[in-house]
């Protein structure tokens, strides 16, 4: 089966800045794919390379088996939901949504009908006569989505589309996007710096840093088995244990990651590993308590369930965890 998007050794350098550097990537058709990373990591440039706003300085890009370099954006069956929506301020909502069909020469009645259907799909029926300035951020986000989807793109690109929404709306839109993607079967490529968003929505995630893909895998892979210190730290702030601590635990490794919620304080069974330490800080986060423990000069974060008693600062404690939760890493 041909890949929806294929990157072979793709680079995009701006002078000395390597925004994207020798990236290999294969996104399957119908997949919900997330590109996760901090700002400046190259994820947005990758998206712009797919859309055609940027041209690669090296490498080869294919979209559904066809060469994409040198092809302008308006000849790609790829549509984008922009970060700040980029709705046309001088057009009504209906004309905004119908824009893609209008420039392709679809008749007035037909495109209006399609635009109204698309607005109904994003739960904004009857909003067609308003102007973008009259809508809230969440509504504009839906219009931007309808404007892209009405063209029935082969690939839908979403550039941090939920970034400007408040938490409640964001969670609701996450679910809606996910179910929309399932029902339409369109390949979604989603750029975000929010690891929770990527984990909850994507089929697969590529974690970017410094223009390169650090790790590519399913959300579970990325979360439980980070391959590098960067991934361990960026995705859910794992503890990274040094080789010295690994040696004390009897596990020979250069480094190992351990999730804060996999650690229990004070209880230890025979089959578990344990580490002694001193509590240095604690804070209440609602569902959990975040406890910082100093083990021989290394800080280990524990996410302790709120129902459990929290030791005082300065108390000596035992940290217990299962060997299975300790994920060994190739690099230090």
């Amino acid at each position, binding site marked *: 089966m041909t890949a929806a998007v294929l990157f072979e050794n793709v680079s995009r350098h701006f002078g000395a800045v390597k925004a994207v550097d020798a990236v290999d990537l294969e996104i399957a058709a119908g997949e919900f794919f997330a590109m996760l990373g901090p700002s400046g990591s190259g994820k947005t440039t990758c998206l712009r390379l797919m*859309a055609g706003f940027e041209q690669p300085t090296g490498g080869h890009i294919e979209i559904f088996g066809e060469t994409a370099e040198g092809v302008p954006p*308006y000849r790609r069956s790829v549509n984008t939901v922009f970060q700040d929506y980029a709705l046309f301020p*001088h057009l009504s909502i209906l004309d905004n949504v119908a824009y893609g069909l209008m420039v392709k020469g679809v008749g007035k009645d037909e495109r209006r009908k399609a635009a109204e259907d698309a607005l109904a799909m994003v739960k904004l029926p009857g909003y067609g006569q308003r102007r973008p300035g009259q809508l809230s951020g969440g509504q504009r986000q839906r219009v931007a989505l309808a404007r892209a989807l009405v063209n029935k793109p082969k690939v839908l690109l979403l550039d941090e589309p939920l970034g400007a929404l408040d938490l409640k709306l964001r969670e609701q839109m996450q679910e809606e996007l996910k179910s929309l993607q399932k029902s339409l079967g369109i390949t979604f490529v989603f750029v975000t710096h929010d690891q929770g968003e990527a984990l909850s929505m994507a089929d697969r995630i590529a974690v970017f840093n410094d223009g390169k893909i650090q790790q590519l895998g399913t959300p579970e892979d990325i979360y439980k088995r980070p391959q590098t210190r960067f991934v361990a730290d960026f995705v859910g702030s794992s503890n990274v244990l040094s080789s010295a601590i690994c040696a004390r635990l009897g596990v020979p490794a250069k480094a190992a990651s351990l999730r804060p919620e996999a650690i229990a304080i004070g209880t230890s069974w025979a089959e578990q590993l344990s580490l002694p330490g001193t509590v240095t800080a604690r804070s209440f986060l609602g569902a959990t308590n975040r406890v910082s423990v100093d083990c021989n000069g290394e800080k280990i974060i524990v996410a302790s369930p709120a129902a459990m008693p929290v030791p005082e600062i300065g108390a000596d404690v035992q940290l217990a965890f299962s060997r299975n939760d300790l994920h060994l890493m190739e690099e230090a």
Partner: protein
Amino acid sequence: MSALATPAAIMPNRPGLTGRISDFLWKHPHVLLVILLGPPVLWLGIIYLGSLFALLLQSFFSIDDFSGLISYEFTLSTYKQLLSDANFDIIVRTITMAAVVTIFSALIAFPIAYYAARYAKGKWKAVFYLGIMLPLWSSYLVKIYAWKLILAKEGILTWAFTKLHLLWLLDGWLSLPIIGGNSLSVSYTGTFLVFVYVWMPFMILPIQAALERVPGNLIEASSDLGGTPQQTFRHVLFPLALPGIVAGSIFTFSLTLGDYIIPQIVGSSRLFIGQAVYAQQGTAGNIPLAAAFTVVPIVIMGLYLWMAKRMGAFDAL
């Protein structure tokens, strides 16, 4: 405690008159508004608009042909005189010139403004502003006389056409009726060129300001949705730049309608509205007719703005 003592929660009044004035104006913001706005509104209302209406009022008086005195009785006879063939010709000539100058200014200004708004950064932006503004800093008369020399039969343009073996082209153009003449400096073509040159900054700057406000991602969004560059220009860029183009055209159009120096120095001897006003109020002493002539640009600009609004030129504002 040291000199930097913890401040009180509510600090005492600042001493002196300025402190009391500050407190008073803070409590009565409308007084501040009246102080700031009063003088300019009075200036605009009485001296500026007042004198304009006084002038317009004159157009409803008439001149006694026999004695040359103004009779202060309400009459429309001056307007009848305004619409006589000779005077109506002047109006049509001026409006046509203003329209053509405006259209060509917009055509030339748009690419320059587009480059300046989209691509020019840092140093190049400064070069752009200097290039646009520099001609405005030199005397208007010097520029027009310079153009008279450039356009003269012995001038650099004729010389350049001769050297390029294109003199036949220039001669062919000058032999055309109406727009031609003995040389460029005594033809409507010459008048047109100087008008376009002199008013160009007034067209470029508003368009540049309008284009600067168009977010770059709207251009990308249009392209992303399948819009070719022409379609993007027609459906996104042009409508959003239109308020700027209209603003610029108000300048070029009204400045051309009112100017009396350029057509006097460069062009044929036929009059434009500005020259007619100048001649009527000066040598002829016919203030009512001069006033009636000044009503024409005001009415035309009013109609122009009304039409522009109806065509949706200000929708993007």
